[in-house]
């Protein structure tokens, strides 16, 4: 058992040390440190404005941190951005794809950017995996939000990323599709050993998908642990109750 765990999480895929981000006057991320092991799914949790998206944007090199260090695959993000991005991917409910292109055209463009071999075959297999094969020739702008979420996920899996960053990937999915997406994420994690950092406001998502949670409050880490450990730590019966407690009493909880 110990051995199995050891082999599941050897060297960390992502190491964040003392990360801080200030936007003139506002401290969005306040000195956080955490690691993500190989094949681990880490949930970033916290109320609106806690600093989740900012953290992901820094991990993607879109936003530069005020201080602190990010290492991905053992490389410094600041110095090896392009090499790192080649093996990462990202999906969010808040981005879009060019609306007048067909689904396969959009995916082919990104497959080319990531230099995916046998791109068309890869695209077809991902569309099948996400159960949207029938949308292949649809115009992207005409998709429902749930359909387009899955197209975004297909885009995020094109390059077989070793690290997948997901900002509220299940926002706007109906319960049935959300359930399928959760199971799918679990499955690709099992089969391909992909590490993920995952933000969501859906506690069900987090309980089901995440191995470990980092609870953020006003840019600081309040607690870290498995969903069960976190619920026990805050003396609540569900993650949903923990969330509400943190949102209301977070400031006191932050005090040592």
């Amino acid at each position, binding site marked *: 058992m110990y051995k199995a765990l050891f082999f599941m999480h050897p060297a960390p895929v992502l190491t964040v040390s003392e990360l801080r981000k200030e936007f003139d006057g506002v401290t969005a991320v306040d000195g956080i440190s955490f690691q993500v092991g190989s094949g681990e799914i880490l949930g970033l949790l916290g109320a609106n404005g806690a600093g989740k998206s*900012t953290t992901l944007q820094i991990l993607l090199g*879109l936003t*530069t941190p005020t201080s602190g260090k990010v290492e991905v695959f053992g490389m410094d993000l600041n110095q090896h951005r392009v090499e790192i991005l080649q093996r990462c991917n990202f999906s969010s409910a808040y*981005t879009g794809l060019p609306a*007048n*292109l067909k689904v396969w055209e959009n995916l082919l463009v990104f497959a080319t*950017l990531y230099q995916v071999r046998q791109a068309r075959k890869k695209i077809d297999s991902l569309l099948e995996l996400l159960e949207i094969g029938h949308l292949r020739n649809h115009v992207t702008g005409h998709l429902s939000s749930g359909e387009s979420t899955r197209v975004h996920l297909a885009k995020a899996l094109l390059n077989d990323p070793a690290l997948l960053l997901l900002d509220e990937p299940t926002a706007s999915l109906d319960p049935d599709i959300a359930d399928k997406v959760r199971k799918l994420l679990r499955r690709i994690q099992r089969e391909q050993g992909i590490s993920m950092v995952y933000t969501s406001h859906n506690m069900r998502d987090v309980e089901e998908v995440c191995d470990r949670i980092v609870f953020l409050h006003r840019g600081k880490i309040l607690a870290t642990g498995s969903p069960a450990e976190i619920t026990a730590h805050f003396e609540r019966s569900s993650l949903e109750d923990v969330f509400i407690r943190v949102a209301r009493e977070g400031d006191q909880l932050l005090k040592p």
Partner: protein
Amino acid sequence: MNLHRVGGLILRYTFLYTRSVPRVLEMFFWPVMDLLVWGMLTQYLQTGPYHLPAFIRFLLGGMILWDVLYRAQQATTISFLEDVWARNLMNVFVAPVRLREFFAATFCVGTLKIVVTVAVLAVLSATFYDFHLLSLGSALAPLFVNLLIMGWSVGILTTGMILRWGQASEALAWGIPFLLQPVCAAFYPVSTLPGWLQPVSLAIPATHVFEGMREVLAGQGLSPARLAWAFSLNLVYLSAASLLFRRLFHQARSKGLLAKLGTQ
């Protein structure tokens, strides 16, 4: 520079422009309208009560070449805005794409579009107004290239401004070329400008292109000095624009604007 990725971006623009009737029409609508107005005007000036010499047709040359500059700038900035409008900016910039690859792709696609537009204008102006763009002979290529480069510099700059100051500065994307138009002597010689403005005008690469065009059309041939001025000024401005863009890009990343512009 990774040509594979440049190819990927070019592929995207190819899909984008061939899938959209308005975008294809836009390539021809305004230039053809402009050509009609200027063509009619030159015809009137030549055959009406004024009987101006045939040289007046250089106005059509000015109009077509101005369009090269304007469209080179637009192609760069609008390509960027297309991603902003589609909320696709983040997807592109979290892909392993370098800035120079991004711009190389917009330059390639922009040049291709401009060549098509100019070819159509050249045929129309030759057919209806007896103005032959090819009469510029071997001077055409260097003049054209200099206008492209200057358009890219302005395009890089306006793109940087939109990145830094948001979509509110989009108006700049449309407006800045027209700030240059009166000064760069597209339709009249530099000597027409007030004395104090002439040095400013001569510091613009396009001025040397338009002066050169008039010289060629007047049968004097293109002086190497003109060309040297245009190329050197272009080199300076393109480098300055790239440096400035890097700065603005850096500021945008530090203020989290790349992500904001990509999701709003």
